[in-house]
């Protein structure tokens, strides 16, 4: 019935969006009907975010629609007056942005931010607004909603912030919700929670949803209709089941195939007996929490007696909940963080207490991909320069060779033409790939990859994972692979480490852990993974009926 509705909620017709002559979106059309969930998928940088923003007329200044139209219930959004546009925003069309961590005003209490739109678009009394906010916060499982209203954004973890964003948008019961990658920043457990809440809320109100994502698992689970985008063009569109089960186009097929599946692994290398290349022994690490008046405050224990050894050519996955100390462990092993006690052995040498400049080869041979790609890229350097910088310490390279290596690595991560761009001119996934390129260009022995693929679409994810595998095969490099994506972990890693609260709670070969998780936490993690074992197994009838999974 929904497909027959006479007028779509949102109708995008042949929209083109350009910037300084170049065209980013090249004529995209699709409809969102009342109550429908439409997924916009496509590789990183294909223009998904652009389209979402264009609907609300919130594109960056330099980028603007050049032709085509966007109709909301039949009226052209592009030709609305500023005032009528503002009336639509928030009240009729809500949007959850890709980067939740920076989408809340750091200087304003949550309560006020939530109330703001309601005060504007409804005539509710302050008491009623408060009541509704509290109800909504309770709904999204924020404990102690009253206190939450008086708190500031930085006091919440990423997952909570993401949910708060969602709550504040849904409070107004919009007619159309645009959700731009609402879960990328979250670990698997939180991801599930957020999406379930979102779908729950929209179902109650009958909101149409434009879901922007690269996660086909989510698409399969929640979307009615899929639009596949490639380089600003629609490749294929249709009901979810049709597209996923029976993709017509090569691109779509590739997209679907690249979804990691949980296949039993081929026999794995074991590192037993071989000397490890990098090893942490009984590492203890705590953070200084500043001084109180006279006495030092107790230090915050983050790593408690952690030991971990990596053999050359081995990929070890580290999984664990948010705040469990994964990043800290990775940084400690690369001597980016000083440890309190224990040893860090590189090729058998303890480097834990060496000064930076005595580290010699260590720095060059051990690289890291930071968790947050955007802030790890110097905003004033071009992509090419960022990557080339990693070759500074490579002796005996001519300028030309350096450039060649840079270009080669950039094309390996799918950024061949982006050498002269600045980081802010890239999409989220593209930035992530720059960070990866920088880490691998010098062909290190060890890489600590901190959530390297969370922001990537499936094709690129696959590409990157394959790159990791290839490098491992060819050069025998070792990798500490921090991730919350169990599917990906399973594909690349030979061994898995599960962390909780600064200690390793479970450790073992990948398959063994997956088949037979010992620890409670590991079990929950496994249960929460939205893995699509086979695309055909997902059924449309399952959609939107799943109860909230705790």
């Amino acid at each position: 019935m929904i497909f027959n509705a006479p007028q779509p909620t949102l109708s995008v017709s042949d929209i083109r969006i350009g910037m300084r002559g170049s065209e980013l979106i090249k004529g995209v059309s699709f409809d969102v009907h009342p109550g429908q969930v439409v997924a916009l998928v496509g590789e990183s940088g294909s223009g998904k975010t652009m389209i979402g923003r264009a609907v609300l007329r919130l594109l960056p200044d330099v980028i603007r629609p050049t032709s085509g139209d966007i109709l909301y219930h039949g009226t052209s959004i592009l030709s609305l007056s500023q005032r009528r546009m503002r009336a639509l925003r928030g009240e009729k069309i809500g949007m959850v942005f890709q980067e939740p961590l920076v989408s809340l005003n750091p200087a304003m209490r949550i309560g006020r931010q939530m109330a703001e739109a309601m005060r504007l678009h409804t005539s509710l009394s302050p008491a009623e607004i408060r009541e509704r906010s509290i109800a909504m916060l309770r709904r999204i499982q924020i404990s102690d909603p009253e206190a939450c209203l008086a708190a500031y954004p930085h006091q919440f973890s990423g997952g909570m912030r993401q949910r708060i964003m969602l709550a504040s948008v849904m409070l107004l019961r919009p007619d159309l919700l645009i959700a731009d990658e609402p879960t990328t920043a979250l670990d698997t457990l939180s991801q599930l929670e957020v999406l379930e809440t979102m779908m729950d809320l929209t179902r109650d109100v009958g909101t149409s949803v434009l879901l922007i994502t690269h996660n086909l698992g989510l698409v399969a689970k929640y979307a009615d209709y899929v639009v596949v985008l490639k380089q600003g063009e629609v490749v294929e569109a249709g009901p979810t089941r049709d597209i996923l089960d029976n993709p017509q186009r090569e691109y779509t097929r590739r997209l679907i195939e690249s979804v990691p599946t949980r296949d039993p692994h081929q026999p794995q290398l074991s590192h037993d007996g071989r000397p490890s290349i990098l090893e942490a022994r009984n590492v203890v690490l705590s953070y200084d929490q500043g001084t109180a008046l006279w006495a030092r405050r107790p230090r915050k224990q983050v790593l408690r007696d952690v030991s971990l050894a990596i053999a050359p050519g081995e990929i070890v996955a580290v999984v664990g909940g948010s705040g469990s100390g994964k990043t800290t462990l990775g940084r400690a092993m690369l001597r980016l963080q000083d440890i309190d006690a224990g040893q860090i052995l590189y090729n058998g040498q303890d480097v834990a207490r060496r000064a930076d400049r005595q580290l010699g080869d260590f720095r060059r041979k051990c690289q890291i991909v930071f968790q947050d790609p955007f802030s790890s890229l110097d905003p004033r350097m071009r992509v090419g320069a960022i990557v080339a910088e990693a070759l500074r310490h490579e002796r005996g390279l001519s300028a030309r060779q350096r450039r060649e290596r840079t270009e080669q690595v950039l094309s390996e991560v799918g950024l061949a033409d982006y050498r002269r761009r600045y980081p802010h001119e890239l999409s989220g996934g593209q930035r992530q790939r720059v960070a990866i390129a920088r880490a691998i260009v010098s062909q290190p022995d060890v890489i600590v990859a901190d959530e390297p693929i969370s922001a990537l679409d499936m094709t690129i994810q696959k590409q990157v994972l394959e790159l990791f595998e290839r490098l491992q095969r060819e050069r025998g490099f070792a990798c500490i692979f921090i991730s919350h994506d169990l599917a990906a972990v399973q594909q690349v890693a030979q061994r898995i480490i599960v962390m909780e609260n600064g200690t390793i709670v479970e450790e073992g070969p990948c398959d063994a852990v997956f088949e037979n998780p010992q620890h409670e936490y590991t079990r929950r993690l496994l249960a929460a993974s939205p893995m699509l074992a086979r695309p055909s197994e997902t059924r449309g009838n399952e959609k939107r009926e799943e109860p909230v999974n705790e």
Partner: protein
Amino acid sequence: MFARLNLIFGGILGSVVLGMALLALVWTPASPVAIDPINRLSGPIPGHLFGTDEFGRDILSRIMTGAWTSLSVAFLTVAFAVICGSAIGLLTGFYRGWFDRIAMLLNDALLAFPGILLALGIVAIIGPSKYGIIIALGIAYTPKVIRIVRGTVLSLRQKEFVEASRALGNGSVFTMLRHVLPNSFAPIAVLATSLFGWVILAESALSFLGLGVPPPAATWGNMLSAARPHLSTAPWMSIIPGGFIALTLLSINLLGDALRDWLDPRM
């Protein structure tokens, strides 16, 4: 388009002033120091296009030679303060440690120190000369630069791209110069342009107190301060140097904004 407007406007104003200053090195319409008591305090007349001052000196010629002195004093002072201030701010903010603590203690003390006392002291020690003024004002303004640059550096060193550089095995000096410094350019540029204005005015205030560039050399500042008693009888004496100060500052500010935008890839 604004950046363009900045550049054009600022550029034109700046080159006029600079051109005038350079011209004065080889030619002025009259001697800027020759006095002529009979024609004192005369309004604009042929031969004295901008009129004469209280000693009957030609104001146009003094404006021209003054341009050179004022601009060079301002430029050297700003360069002094910005270079020293940025270097110290960069080092202390980047390396922290005891060096930082001691430097900040000193800096706070200096910040709480009125510039005039400092100027008086330094001029008393070095003697009143153009270079004494430059050093005095330079020392007076350096702490402000240090404070602002250090603040920027402190926040930059938290950024992951700085850590990323370390992870690549880059030395701290390289990291500082390649990543931290360029990213603090914007606030330094804004600060430097403001400083330029403050210095021209401070030289004027020092002249007002008798501590400026020693006469009979002209600076816009000492011309302005000399004009004070004649404000209502010879208004051109203050309007002309005042106008030149304002135009120069406008030009510097516009160029500064243009520079900042140009340095910022996000624009």
